[in-house]
């Protein structure tokens, strides 16, 4: 019986990939375990093995095809003696499939209530971090981070990158791809799996005059290193009366990815923002990822740089400039509006922006502010916006108790109470460990629906 070989999912967040190369052709006999194709995800190029034996009767997706969706049939395997008489229907394959087959069948299951707006939004008529007329280049967050680190390493010999798989593996999430080749193993250092230890060594190296960038494969693992981050890196400047501190960056993906459950899906923004002596940034757009990373590396203090796996592959406009930086501690008004202020940061911005687009169709004009920095927080921009709109909703992925939203609400209450026409509502992740099941995970995360509902509540609609 003919079986379909399907486009495999090769990482938790992979939705589609490129079929870079076929290593078999139609008519070839394959056995289980034979490598039949090379597939490129946004993280890496992986070899794909046959799981059955048989003959490749038809190659459905030609090599070089991009954006092939996970689970789309890419080839047909038959048993010996069998002939393919009917070309099976290709379900869920991308438009422009190289095979030219007729597409039919259901579209991917969509449970989202809101129509998905374009994700690559450009701020509307708000101040930019670059001069008007600067040439822009479309770049992923991943590329922006790599460029930022590489530019700073070219600029300053004392900057180095250390972490698990940053070198020969080219980065667990491909952020440091190519850096080992350029800078060598002295400055791109693979560590053993020993977060507490290498974080401590990096802090010591910073005391000793270097500027380390520590990559945590994810911030979940940085919990092992929490003592060195908080007690050693953050407090030494104060404890030494200003004599010495730790000029360094701790960076890596933070928050939920997809289907990796409780121990790998936590947003630590509020934890780090709690600690005096640290600076904390959490960019959304690629330009901020780049500009803030360069500022973080140059900053004389320890900076926690919270990235997001889901955002790594997203593209945004990044200015083409010799030395583009974004100051730490400055929020960005992403979208101007007059009816309500939506405050967010990191991946939360996705929901804030989607909600704002949806609300505008409903006649509600939302101002969206990307905090970008969580320590220090740009209170001036927050308060100016709230004093203008008189209503506020905060959006973040983290747990609700002791959240960034809680803190912002308190500050707004203390400093702008008379300007408020409604209580501030915090949209957060739910107060549960992240579940694994698809439906429960979706429920645990903050959603665009919830942001829309919160805005309607504070605007009494």
């Amino acid at each position, binding site marked *: 019986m003919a079986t379909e070989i399907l486009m495999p999912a090769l990482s938790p967040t992979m939705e589609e990939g490129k079929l870079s190369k076929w290593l078999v052709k139609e008519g070839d006999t394959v056995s289980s375990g034979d490598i039949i194709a090379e597939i490129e995800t946004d993280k890496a190029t992986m070899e794909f093995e046959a799981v059955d034996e048989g003959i490749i009767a038809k190659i459905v997706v030609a090599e070089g095809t991009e954006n092939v969706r996970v689970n789309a049939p890419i080839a047909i395997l038959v048993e010996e003696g069998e002939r393919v008489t009917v070309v099976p229907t290709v379900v869920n394959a991308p438009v422009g499939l190289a095979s030219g087959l007729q597409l039919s069948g259901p579209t991917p299951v969509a449970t989202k209530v809101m129509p998905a707006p374009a994700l690559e939004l450009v701020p509307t008529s708000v101040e930019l971090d670059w001069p008007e007329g600067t040439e822009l280049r479309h770049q992923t967050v991943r590329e922006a981070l790599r460029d930022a680190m590489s530019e700073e390493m070219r600029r300053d010999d004392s900057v*180095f990158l250390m972490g698990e798989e940053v070198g020969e593996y080219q980065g667990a999430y491909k952020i440091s791809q190519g850096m080992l080749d350029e800078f060598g193993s*002295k400055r791109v250092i693979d*560590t*053993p799996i*020993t977060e*507490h*230890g*290498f*974080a*401590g*060594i*990096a*802090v*010591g*190296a*910073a*005391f*000793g*005059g*270097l500027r380390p960038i520590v990559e945590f494969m994810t911030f979940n693992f940085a919990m092992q290193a929490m*003592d*060195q981050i908080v*007690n*050693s890196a953050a407090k*030494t*400047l*104060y*404890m*030494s*009366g*200003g*004599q*010495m*501190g730790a000029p360094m960056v701790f960076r890596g993906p933070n928050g939920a990815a997809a289907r990796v459950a409780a121990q790998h899906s936590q947003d630590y923004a509020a934890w780090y923002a709690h600690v*005096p*002596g640290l*600076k904390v940034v959490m960019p959304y757009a690629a330009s901020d990822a780049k500009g803030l990373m360069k500022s973080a590396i140059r900053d*004389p*203090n320890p900076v926690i740089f919270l990235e997001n796996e889901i955002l790594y592959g997203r593209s945004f406009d990044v200015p083409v400039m010799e030395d583009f930086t974004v100051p730490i501690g400055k929020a960005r008004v992403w979208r101007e509006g007059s009816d309500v202020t939506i405050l967010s940061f990191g991946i939360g911005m996705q929901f804030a922006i989607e909600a704002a687009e949806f609300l505008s169709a409903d006649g509600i004009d939302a101002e969206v502010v990307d905090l970008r920095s969580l320590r220090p927080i740009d209170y001036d921009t927050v308060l100016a916006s709230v004093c203008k709109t008189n209503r506020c909703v905060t959006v973040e992925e983290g747990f609700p108790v002791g959240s960034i939203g809680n803190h912002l609400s308190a500050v707004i209450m203390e400093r702008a109470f008379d300007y408020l026409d409604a209580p501030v509502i915090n949209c957060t992740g739910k107060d549960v460990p992240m579940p694994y099941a698809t439906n429960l995970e979706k429920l645990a995360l903050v959603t665009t629906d919830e942001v829309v509902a919160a805005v309607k509540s504070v605007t009494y609609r």
Partner: protein
Amino acid sequence: MAARKSSSKPNVSAEELLKYYKEMLLIRRFEEKAGQLYGMGLIGGFCHLYIGQEAVVVGLEATAKQGDKRITSYRDHGHMLAAGMDPGGVMAELTGRMGGYSKGKGGSMHMFSKDKHFYGGHGIVGAQVPLGAGLAFADRYQENARVTFTYFGDGAANQGQVYETFNMAALWQLPVIFVIENNQYAMGTAQNRSTSTPDLYTRGEAFGIRGETVDGMDVLAVKDAGDKAVKHCRSGKGPYILEIKTYRYRGHSMSDPAKYRTREEVQKMREERDPIEQVRSILLTKNYAIEDDLKAIDKEVKSVVNAAAEFSKESPEPNVEELWTDVCI
């Protein structure tokens, strides 16, 4: 990876011996004075005295060169004095005054001196071990010939991060000397109640780190072992472990009633093994000094300590603005 006991004593000049005597005595008298000031309420919080362990830092500092680094735990007053830091500045930090090394913001456990390459003073047991390896990492990165003395106790030797550090220090051949000051009690827990294998100098064997045990009540034995360790590290051969067997006469901190050991045990150590008395005895029997010479040193040390104590009382409390400075640059 032969681990062995170092017992040979180097030939030592009268001048060197007198120097060790004076340095050890300074630490002893300083700590006694700190104990007094604590009793008077001038020093607060935790205060961990180094009395009995003086030979460790004095012996090792005698092996250091300009630019070498040192880092230790919260029992740090002796290390700072041995590194040449100003006794007045140290004492004023203990009293929480502006004239202290950290402007009164660090206290007994958290003091630093960039000038003297003293990197703290760390309050979390074992945390200074990876930090010390990191200092050595910086030296190796900068390709200088410095070494880092990373001190920790027998209690810290059971922390996991110590072994994470041993692994990386050996893997990357870091010029770090791990100095385990084994004073036999991790706070109130005797070593045989906390440690499955008592020979701490063998703890690096699994990582290929050479180690040896040293009589820490004998400053000359410490100096001798330190010379070997420094030579090993400075020549690029990677880390080295010295387990220095020592003894603290006082409690873990000022608030320690010391019910976990007998008064006789402490008394016996003081009478038979005291590091300062040992040097004093050599000085006198070898006719390197007469009683009057030693009395003159005692007097000089006492006046230094008294001046430090006076300074620490007279130095003003930090300005209230200091609350908000040095959080970030």
